[in-house]
């Protein structure tokens, strides 16, 4: 590993040692939802396997936008602790959603359509990078990139006024993060990472809070984000977030 790469990696907080990329980060070593696929129903099998094996061609973003979007998403959901073979596509699924015009059933009155919001957001991110560091976002180090994005998280972007007059910064932030986590946590590799059982029909579960025979017990290890990371600290979203209520399904 060269130095540039090790800078991006999480560390053992006790020893300070860099933790090398893994096929499967998280506390469930050896756990594999995909190994259970012969117990899934046919429709589910098809949907999940297509997600794992089919890379989507970029149709919505221009090549320049797609490169910038890749860099942005690599900070919203960093995957530097995953080896190359086990990284989860983020921009592909977002692009596919926007290209096919799939929305969540609503648009805030102070927001443009999702696709336009994403394109405007990329322009604003570039403007903030120039404002703070006089450098394109793509050429910034990961720590600087995080500081650019953090200004939107905080609801106080220091550049791109024209864009923020057309859309709300906190709502754009939530759109961006939601799209990234929706892609990442839809993937079986992410399920293995967090110990989620994945598809469970027609077999079901029988053991409540305990692992099923094919699940594994948690085996925790200590890790911390790279030193430059600001996203490792939990800070409240920018002002006004309490009125934003993304209100996703997943509840009653």
């Amino acid at each position, binding site marked *: 590993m060269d130095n540039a790469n090790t800078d991006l990696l999480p560390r053992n907080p006790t020893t300070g040692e860099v933790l090398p990329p893994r096929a499967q980060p998280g506390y469930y070593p050896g756990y594999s939802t995909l190994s259970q696929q012969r117990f899934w129903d046919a429709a589910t099998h098809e949907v999940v396997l297509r*997600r794992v094996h089919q890379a989507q061609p970029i149709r919505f973003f221009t090549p320049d936008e797609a490169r910038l979007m890749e860099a942005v998403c690599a900070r919203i959901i960093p995957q530097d602790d995953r080896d190359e073979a086990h990284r989860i596509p983020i921009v592909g699924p977002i692009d596919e959603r926007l290209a096919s015009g799939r929305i969540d059933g609503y648009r805030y009155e102070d927001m443009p359509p999702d696709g336009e919001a994403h394109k405007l957001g990329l322009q604003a991110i570039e403007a903030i990078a120039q404002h703070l560091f006089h450098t394109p976002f793509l050429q910034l180090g990961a720590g600087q990139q995080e500081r650019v994005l953090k200004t939107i998280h905080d609801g106080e972007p220091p550049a791109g006024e024209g864009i923020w007059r057309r859309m709300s910064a906190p709502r754009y932030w*939530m759109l961006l993060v939601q799209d990234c986590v929706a892609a990442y946590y839809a993937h079986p590799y992410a399920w293995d990472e967090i110990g989620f059982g994945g598809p469970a029909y027609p077999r079901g579960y029988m053991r409540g809070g305990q692992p099923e025979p094919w699940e594994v017990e948690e085996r925790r290890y200590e890790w911390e*984000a790279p030193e430059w990371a600001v996203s490792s600290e939990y800070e409240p979203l920018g002002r006004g977030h309490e009125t934003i209520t993304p*209100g*996703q*399904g997943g509840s009653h």
Partner: protein
Amino acid sequence: MKSPLFGKFEEPEDDEHWLGPIQRLKTPMRRFAPGDEVDIVIVGVGSAGGVLLQRLARAGFRVVGIEAGPFWDTERDWVSDEAGSHQLYWNDLRITGGAHPLAFGANNSGRGVGGGSVHWAAFTPRFHPSDFRVYSEDGVGADWPISYQDLKPYYELLEREMPVAGPAYFPWGDPHGYPYGPHPLGGPAEALVKGCTALGIPVCQGGPVAINSGSHGDRPHCIYRGFCIQGCKVGAKQSTLISHVPDAIEYGAEIRANSMVARVNLGKDGLVTGVTYFDEDGHEQEQRAKVVIVSGYAIETPRLLLNSACNGFEQGLANSSGVVGKYLMAQAGNVVMGRFDDPVRMYKYPPANALTEEFYETDPRRGFARGFAIQTVGPLPIAFAKQMMVAKGAWGWGMRAVMMDYNHWAALGLLGEILPWEDNRVELAEETDRYGLRVAKSTFNLHDNDQKMIAYGVNKVEEVLRAAGATEVVQEPRYAHLIGGARMGNDPSTSVVDGFCRSHDIPNLFVCDGSVFPTQGSANPGLTIQALAARTADYLIAEREAILTRQPRSMRGVEAGAPPIHYDLSPHGTSGRGVPRLKSRTPTPEIGLGGLPVGSKG
């Protein structure tokens, strides 16, 4: 483990329509000829529409249900996967605004046969007697034109037809018991029970929830996989798709799926003549009917009435009051999450698993009117990540870290009664959908009483989680369910429909769904929507002659009292035994419009 415990799984044959792994759609569906006038057309085959269709078909009406979404085959169309279930929700554009804009789609809006009952978590508490008298008792909100006693027999019927699993004794509101036993507890329910018990708060375990705890006819019991709101492939959770629609089809109802109603048509005599809709090929069609029932729920129902504006009803059909679209409600649905040292694994077991209604009624000491319930929720990973984005401001490495702890978190939901306010409303936006129909625009603002209730309620849920042993507690503001937009009442100048869901303005136009509720309580609305649909069907059956002879103006008004209750119209194998404290199948004697609710709080 090489094979499942119970052997090889069956795959669907080509000509089979599956409604769960055992039930098949048996009979070919009746098709009315183009140009045929039917007795009754129902717009929207969801929670209300499915029950109406079933009751009316069994009673012998010629009835058609027109549904915007697909007629699901549960085995082919649904998946055991969070991201893959996107098509279950009403995802067409709506504009949302106001100081506290509502989210739609997966949050509260269904599409396809079964409607919202396909993706509800299926908590089925009844409304309390006090819910029907909020204005009389608390001086806020509105009274219903019907009482708890009017709905009680229909609650009892639907609890058996769904059927509902829960305890033998449910202590709040009008105490009652459930026909199927309570479910075992998942992680969040354990937390709720432990926390409430530590604080001396009574708590109800394992229901009430419309999920089979034992097999029921050709529907198996729950397998505890936790994908309730992604559509229950198991067929254990009730949706009208699997509980009422097969019976409706057997009795000659027709469902036209993938068909979007554009407007309700008004004739020169001031009666509606039917509906105009776009069929699944996008062609405009007309369906004439003697009676039209709009069952499109709190956004699409007002939208359709407003889009049906015509001569004589320039502000929207049946809208002489100006109330169509107004008094829109959502319940406060804040999700409060606690981290526990021991794994919780909240993806297993139904999200709807335990609740307390101890804070449901007004308590003057709290400084606000009405109250809230506390319920379990069990977000799957994507929903949980989005909740953590808000609750902790998580992103980047912080998001990855908190998600690695997914199995240590338990989520509980506030379910709080936001009051009906005139400024919370559905209107038409300038934008149009793919059919050229103007889309809905909602405006939503919390008022002082709502905000006090939410602050108090969130604090109480946090207290419960800490008492259960949570080491960290965070919350996400959110709203659950939609209610209102075409409310019922006795006064035609302040309401859209009467106590039988008949519009004040047009005698053969009905609205029957959650939009007619004047208030919403702190109970999930699904059971009450289905119970109200069964009651509305009984009214239509009682007025059969007036309907069939085209004399809708001679249909009886609410002053004539409640219609006879039909105990013989339940789907096969659902009536009869199994309900503790339900002594007989004869109507309870207290029924009567405007009658004082029995068993309500003092």
